[in-house]
């Protein structure tokens, strides 16, 4: 028998691959000798296994690392790599430019997206105790109402600290809103004010420049401000003990100055006032108001999984007496009806990217966009790398002779691969330099787009620099790898004899082109759909007027002069209607409330609604449509107990005779006093939160709320009207600033995030198409060059210019068509997913995908045909003359 006794060849190859030259042959000999010996005493499979074990045993540094004793100075070789690489780059300026520009654009896009994603992911990680801080999120269900809150009741935090030993500290935050701060004779509005417990600094890492973290928020009428607020009012930061005049009347003593909050924090308050002032925060209720963002700091060794049930037990224990007194039920009865009050603990760093809950301090990020953008960055980078690989392999024919020569002269394969990888590393390094320059140049623009406040200086920080170097190396090696192996595998005999023409057709290259264009089509389709959805949102009939609507703030400061202001406004010719209330469909006041449909106050009959207090002019001013019943009237005294419902709330009450219904509301939790209401009208549903959610039940009650004043202005002499309104304000309250906004602008603000993302996707999609085309252009140029002679002969034989153009474009178009076929289902799936997040969205239409495909085709055709035509119109004499 011949070769029956050879060990597994893959193991042999593996060994030779990793083992150094010094040992490889001799050790392999030893192992084979041992193997032969074993074959005599055991079954072949066993000998094979032993052999493999032997090979594995040699995976050790001493066998892998090159033997240093016959040390060769390899520096010269590497220098040569660089020289050759540099010369090749210079020799083919066109290709080098395409490569470098393509890669640079791709890299800079990646870089920016990377920074964006990194920033999104870095939220709240900088707190020293970040891993131990958790926010208590409540999930409530009673009757048909289910609420997901980011908040808890006023007692939970403090009680948890007392009763659960794993909890080290707790602190609460609540949105205060804004107030006016006096500077000289002026009053300046200061937004982003939060209530905070005195334990704020025990939990969060908010370095104080001045003040004592233990006592800063202990006393009523104190205030902790950030550095920049201090600068704004005092031009210095050592302002401890100074006072600020708030809302023209109160004075607050500054008890602490903190560093400005970093932008990657889930709340962005610039001033904190002590929560001890908030009467509601002292309320002893477990089932009642849930308005406080509550954070627990767990002890070092505590396990969150074990703390959650403890918190829930605690809630149940304390809530039971309250349940008994209000609804007359024990906890078990309450729960057995399918109701619950459940707490969960959200780790601090997760708060920013998890879906928004009710009562979130600041709108959070969207993990979806983090994924989308990462995917786009990956796509763009891949497309750029593919360009590089494609061009390099396509040009293989040109390099084939060089490779053949080198091999004949004794170059090893590894050296050739090294040569090509050096070349791609050099290209990549150049591209990276360009990319960084580009990124720095468009940084301000990018910040504006994303609404982030990133500093270009971040590019110079060590971790980023390290990441950039690694990225350069990875991309360089990755894009040089395939061409390196492809080119170095040429057989010198064939190449030098001239039978190898190379680079005509390659399945791999086709696959890459298909992938590139599939990605482009996907991005075009996604862009179109995102754009259309945003258009839809902006122009959707939301059920109220939002054009020409002026919102005047600070009307709560007018007190008894409010009515005078309202009447004098109505005398201005350009003002059509005026209503005074803080409850507006765009982001203003919100008020969650419960009504019962029966006197029994059964939880089954409870309905959770928005309860908005409005005056008789509201519906008219907003242009809301009454479907049934009548508006509130000043002349009907009983209207203080009347309700106007929206359609969603009406649906809740039943389908018929809504106007006969009598909803009840609990007015006083201690005495269980109920107030009976009468439904007098139904308005058409209007959107008052994001279009991502369906319209929730809402009721209007008649009364006065002075949050702000909304005036509907006539179309003529807009500026004049505005000036007249301001004059009126100045005569009535000269010491308060006239602050206003327009409802359509506020509305747009609601969708700022979507709009930004839409724009970003558009830009990056265009970029990816641009890079794909760059690659296609390079390929087409090369193909045309390759086939110069063929084209010449065809022309001599009478082929027409269009015929030749078609011939050259055909191959590419086929690839693009395949790409389209692959991309459309994927695009369909992803865009559908995105649209499903909106309660109101456009339908997915086939023509969008058709347009995307045709666009990709046209772009590809234009790119290719430029080269094809150039080749086709050449005079055949030029191409055929020299042989």
């Amino acid at each position, binding site marked *: 028998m011949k070769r029956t006794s*050879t060990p597994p060849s893959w193991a042999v190859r593996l060994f030779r691959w990793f083992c150094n030259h010094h*040992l490889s042959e001799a050790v392999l*000999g*030893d192992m084979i000798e041992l193997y032969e010996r074993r074959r005599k005493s055991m079954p072949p499979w066993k000998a094979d296994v032993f052999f493999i074990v032997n090979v594995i*045993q040699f995976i050790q540094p001493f*066998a892998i690392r090159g033997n240093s004793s016959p040390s060769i100075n390899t520096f010269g070789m590497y220098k040569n790599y660089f020289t050759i690489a540099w010369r090749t780059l210079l020799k083919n300026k066109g290709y080098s430019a395409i490569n470098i520009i393509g890669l640079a654009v791709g890299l800079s896009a990646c870089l920016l997206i990377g920074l964006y994603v990194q920033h999104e992911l870095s939220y709240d990680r900088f707190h020293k105790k970040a891993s131990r801080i958790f926010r208590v999120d409540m999930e409530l269900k009673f009757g048909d109402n289910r609420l997901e809150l980011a908040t808890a009741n006023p007692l939970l935090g403090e009680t948890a600290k007392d009763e659960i030993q794993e909890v080290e500290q707790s602190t609460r935050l609540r949105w205060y809103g804004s107030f006016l701060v006096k500077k000289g004779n002026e009053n300046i509005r200061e937004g982003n004010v939060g209530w905070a417990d005195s334990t704020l600094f025990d939990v969060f890492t908010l370095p104080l420049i001045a003040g004592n973290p233990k006592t800063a928020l202990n006393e009523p009428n104190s205030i902790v401000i950030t550095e920049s607020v201090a600068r704004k009012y005092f031009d210095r930061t050592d302002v401890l003990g100074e006072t600020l005049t708030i809302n023209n009347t109160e004075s607050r003593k500054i008890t602490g100055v903190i560093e400005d909050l970093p932008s990657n924090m889930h709340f962005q308050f610039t001033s904190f006032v002590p929560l001890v002032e908030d009467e509601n925060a002292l309320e002893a209720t477990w089932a009642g108001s849930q308005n406080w963002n509550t954070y627990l700091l767990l002890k070092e060794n505590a396990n969150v999984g074990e703390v959650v049930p403890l918190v829930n037990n605690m809630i149940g224990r304390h809530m039971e007496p309250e349940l008994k007194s209000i609804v007359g039920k024990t906890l078990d009865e309450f729960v057995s009806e399918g109701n619950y009050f459940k707490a969960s603990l959200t780790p601090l760093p997760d708060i920013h990217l998890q879906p928004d809950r009710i009562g979130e301090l600041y709108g959070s990020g969207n993990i979806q966009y983090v994924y989308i953008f990462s995917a786009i960055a990956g796509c763009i980078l891949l497309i750029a790398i593919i360009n590089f690989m494609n061009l390099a392999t396509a040009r293989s024919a040109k390099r084939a002779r060089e490779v053949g020569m080198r091999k004949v002269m004794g170059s090893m394969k590894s050296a050739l691969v090294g040569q090509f990888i050096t070349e791609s590393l050099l290209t990549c390094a150049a591209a990276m330099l360009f990319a960084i320059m580009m990124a720095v140049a468009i940084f301000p623009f990018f910040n504006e787009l994303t609404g982030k406040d990133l500093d270009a200086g971040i590019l110079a920080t060590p971790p980023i620099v390290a990441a950039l170097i690694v990225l350069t190396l990875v991309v360089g090696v990755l894009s040089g790898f395939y061409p390196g192996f492809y080119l170095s595998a040429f057989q010198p005999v064939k190449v030098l004899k001239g039978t190898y023409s190379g680079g005509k057709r390659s399945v791999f290259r086709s696959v890459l082109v298909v992938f590139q264009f599939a990605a482009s089509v996907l991005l075009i389709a996604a862009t179109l759909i995102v754009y259309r959805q945003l258009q839809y949102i902006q122009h959707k009939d939301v059920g109220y007027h939002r054009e020409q609507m002026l919102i005047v703030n600070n009307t709560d400061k007018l007190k008894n002069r409010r009515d005078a202001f309202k009447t004098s406004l109505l005398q201005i010719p350009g003002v059509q209607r005026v209503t005074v209330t803080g409850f507006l469909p765009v982001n203003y006041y919100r008020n969650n409330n419960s009504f019962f449909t029966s006197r029994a106050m059964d939880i089954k009959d409870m309905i959770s609604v928005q309860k908005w207090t409005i005056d008789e002019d509201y519906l008219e001013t907003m242009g809301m449509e009454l479907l049934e019943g009548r508006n509130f009237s000043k002349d009907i005294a009983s209207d203080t107990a009347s309700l106007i419902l929206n359609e969603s709330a009406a649906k809740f009450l039943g389908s018929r005779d809504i106007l006969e219904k009598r909803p009840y509301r609990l007015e006083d939790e201690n005495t269980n006093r109920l107030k009976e209401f009468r439904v007098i009208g139904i308005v058409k549903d209007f959107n008052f939160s994001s279009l991502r959610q369906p319209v929730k039940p809402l009721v209007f009650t008649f009364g006065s709320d002075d949050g702000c004043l909304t005036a509907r202005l006539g179309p003529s002499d807009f500026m004049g009207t505005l000036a007249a309104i301001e004059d009126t304000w100045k005569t009535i309250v000269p010491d308060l600033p006239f602050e206003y906004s327009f409802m359509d602008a506020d509305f747009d603000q609601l969708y700022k995030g979507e709009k930004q993302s839409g724009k970003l996707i558009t830009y990056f999609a265009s970029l990816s198409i641009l890079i794909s085309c760059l690659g296609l252009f390079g390929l087409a140029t090369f193909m045309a060059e390759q086939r110069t002679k063929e084209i010449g002969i065809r022309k001599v034989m009478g082929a027409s210019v269009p015929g030749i153009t078609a011939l050259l474009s055909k191959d590419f178009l086929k690839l693009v068509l395949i790409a389209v076929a692959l991309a459309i289902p994927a695009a369909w799936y992803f865009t559908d997913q995105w649209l499903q997040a909106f309660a109101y969205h456009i339908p997915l239409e086939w023509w969008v995908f058709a347009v995307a495909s045709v666009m990709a085709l046209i772009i590809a055709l234009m790119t290719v045909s430029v080269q094809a035509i150039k080749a086709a119109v050449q005079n055949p004499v030029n191409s055929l003359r020299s042989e």
Partner: protein
Amino acid sequence: MKGTYLGEFEELVLLSVGILFDDAYGLALVDELERQTARNIMISSVHKALVRLEEKGYLKSRLGGSTKLRGGRDKRLYQLTQSGKKVLAESRELRNDMWKQVPKIVWEGSRS
């Protein structure tokens, strides 16, 4: 440098190279060591020791002596260098020296 420190296994390998004289290559050394010590010896550890000893300058090697049995591959044949011989001698001397210093009573006293 770690100096002239010689591990126990390294010393055994050096001695085996001396014993086998003309045919001291990896597998033969494994066999010799297994025979002498009655331990199970891994081929990779022998080669590891050989590489290290060569680096320290106690051994020198050349290729040669291929046979059909090994798929026609060369052996790496090892030979003691001057300093290899010296380090073995030193090691032996050290032991002898220390043996002498152990009081006789230690050996005899162990009976009681």
